[in-house]
């Protein structure tokens, strides 16, 4: 019987300190919340924010590193750090939005905030995963928490329905994802990212008959998480039914994490096999953009509209994925731009939502907002324009960067589809502006409350970030580019060192 040789693994804790902090924080929030009344959970929210902020600070320690810890299970590179930062920020924003909302809607505060944090933990795991199984478990941690969060407004049948739909389809798609992992594992004998890439690149993998369907199934599984057509159909229903802060979290956090995983798996691990999947991804991207935008056009509910818009944006991002590793940095930057604008937009939706009503917000509900709360309307304008891709906002810089990258890889047709879709998207994003600025509010809308301070702060931060990231993108682009390269380099180094 061999003694377990722990020394073989490199257990350096610093890199996973942020995750640890989030995990411990979640548990602390949970425990602290035991005696807190559901309607009085604001304190838990602030506690969560404090913890997350601490984690955020610790994250900066990871930037610039290249290497692995925990026997290669966790990659400590700028990619991880980049996603950790964005995810943590998105989570903090979500919590900011939730403060007061959760209490007002009598959500179980302890569970609510801790689940958000657990979910964030899952996301961070996905971002920092060094092998497929960590990605998988991270994905499940995130998803399971989000399933529950979607159903958090338990009295609301829509919320219930959202939870069950999300759960069923999520578990369904987990099957496909796992199947894909299984076949890839079978084909290459490894589930570690870098070695996977090396195995594929060296052509030593055992069989295409395993690798190729594995790639396909992985694509299907990730396609679900990023809500790519035709695996997207859960998204509108779930976005609509989930409590609005949770929707924001799903639209941003889940998508971030899903893309983090997708990038690690496809652009890095399966990068050498790009020729086998880029066409499929391109087709899916085209479909996703088109369907997302077409359906967004006909929506009257604002959350549903934003859901389809999120689908469409996944489509744009997939254009970058299709284009391959050259657009990795662009995807990262786009995700950042997309995240801030979307968080803000959901924040505004939240601000005009009446207590106890989930998912009923219509675009027409924004009528006359510009005269009732001009700042809110202005912020929403910034978000909508950014999502449309109007310069000089973040969304534009993102699209520009992304399409540029795709074009440089020769995906001209896809880029043209993308820009035409952008034009279509202007139609529905601008319809929000129409409602806010060009139509008078109905009497029944007059009870819209003033945005709460925390929420207002969240919206304000998002708006400023949207402008700043768009106008001065250089440092963000640089760090996004750097993050992606660092992941690629780290994994390559590992593969090389393992081969020796």
């Amino acid at each position, binding site marked *: *019987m*061999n003694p*377990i*040789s*722990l020394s*073989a*693994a490199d*257990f350096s804790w610093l890199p*996973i300190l942020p995750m640890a902090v989030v*995990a411990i924080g979640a*548990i602390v929030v*949970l425990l602290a919340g035991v005696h807190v009344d*559901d309607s009085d959970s604001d304190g838990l929210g602030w506690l969560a924010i404090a913890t997350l902020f601490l984690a955020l600070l610790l994250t900066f320690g990871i930037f610039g590193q290249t290497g692995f810890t*925990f*026997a*290669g*299970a*966790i990659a400590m590179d700028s990619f991880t750090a980049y996603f950790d930062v964005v995810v943590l920020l998105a989570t903090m924003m979500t919590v900011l939005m939730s403060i007061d909302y959760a209490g007002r809607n*009598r959500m*179980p505060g302890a*569970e*609510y905030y*801790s*689940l958000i944090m*657990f979910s964030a*933990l899952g996301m961070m*795991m996905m971002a920092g995963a060094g092998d497929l*199984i*960590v990605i998988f*478990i*991270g994905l*499940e*941690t995130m998803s*399971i*928490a989000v*399933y*529950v969060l979607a*159903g*958090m*407004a*338990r*009295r*609301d*049948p*829509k919320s219930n329905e959202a*939870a069950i739909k999300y759960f069923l389809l999520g578990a369904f798609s987990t099957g496909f994802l796992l199947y894909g992992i299984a076949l890839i594992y*079978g084909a290459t*004998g490894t589930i570690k990212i870098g070695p996977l890439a090396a195995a594929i690149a060296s052509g030593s993998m*055992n*069989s295409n*008959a*395993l690798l*190729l*369907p594995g790639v396909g199934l992985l694509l299907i599984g990730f396609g679900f998480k990023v809500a790519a057509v035709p695996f997207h159909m859960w998204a509108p229903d779930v976005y609509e039914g989930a409590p609005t802060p949770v929707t924001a979290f799903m639209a941003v956090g889940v998508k971030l994490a899903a893309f983090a995983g997708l990038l690690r798996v496809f652009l890095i691990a399966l990068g050498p096999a790009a020729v086998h999947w880029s066409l499929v991804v391109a087709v899916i991207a085209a479909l996703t953009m088109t369907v997302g935008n077409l359906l967004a056009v006909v929506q009257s509910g604002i959350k549903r509209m934003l859901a389809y818009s999120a689908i469409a944006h996944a489509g744009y991002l997939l254009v970058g994925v299709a284009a391959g590793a050259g657009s990795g940095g662009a995807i990262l930057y786009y995700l950042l731009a997309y995240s801030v604008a979307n968080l803000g937009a959901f924040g505004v939706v939240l601000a005009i939502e009446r207590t*106890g*009503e*989930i*998912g*009923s917000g219509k675009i027409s509900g924004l009528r006359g907002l510009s005269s009732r709360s001009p700042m809110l309307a202005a912020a929403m304008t910034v978000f909508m324009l950014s999502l449309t891709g109007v310069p000089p906002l973040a969304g534009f810089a993102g699209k520009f960067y992304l399409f540029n990258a795709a074009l440089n890889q020769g995906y001209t047709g896809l880029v043209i589809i993308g820009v035409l879709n952008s034009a279509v998207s202007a139609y529905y994003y601008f319809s929000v502006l129409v409602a806010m600025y060009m139509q008078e509010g109905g009497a029944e809308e007059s009870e819209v409350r003033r945005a709460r301070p925390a929420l207002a702060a969240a919206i304000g931060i998002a708006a400023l970030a949207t402008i700043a990231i768009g106008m001065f993108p250089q440092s963000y682009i640089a760090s996004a580019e750097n993050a992606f390269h660092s992941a690629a380099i780290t994994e390559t180094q590992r593969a090389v060192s393992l081969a020796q």
Partner: protein
Amino acid sequence: MVSAVAAFFGGLAIISALGVIVQRNPVHSLLSLIVTLISIAALFIAEDATVVGLLQIIVYAGAIMVLFLFVIWLLNLQAEAQLSGHLALKLGGSIAASAFAAEMYAILARPHLLSQFTAEPPGFGSIDSLAPKLFTDYLVAFEAASILLLVAVVGAVAMARRLPSAGERKPSGEEQAS
């Protein structure tokens, strides 16, 4: 050559799996599922995955399925009504699933799926071979899995615990629903 064990449990797994999806009564479905799980556990063991096979029987076929059973009873579920009205879906689903099966079969059912096999090291599938992996390569996954279970517990509690009834205001969304 297909060994008798494999043929038997494989066939049983397929038949019972079909049972899961054609039985009208959820309890029957569940029982079929348990048979499937056990058949698969047997195949695990046949493939030198003894520990996992046993876990499959204990944890999966045992604990998890009991959980299902409780829920069925808790919700007092009856057999599904007739097929009427969902024929298209059932037909479409069956055809699509068959097509998918056919595709996967066409891809995977080839003799040289792997160009070469690596011999199993001695003690393959034993607890001794599993444990070091769990605490080295998979330590993070292991810890994460524990957190995952915690999340599941928290989530399940959050979902399933009774709603506080006192002073409850009926949200307007519910009115719309009804």
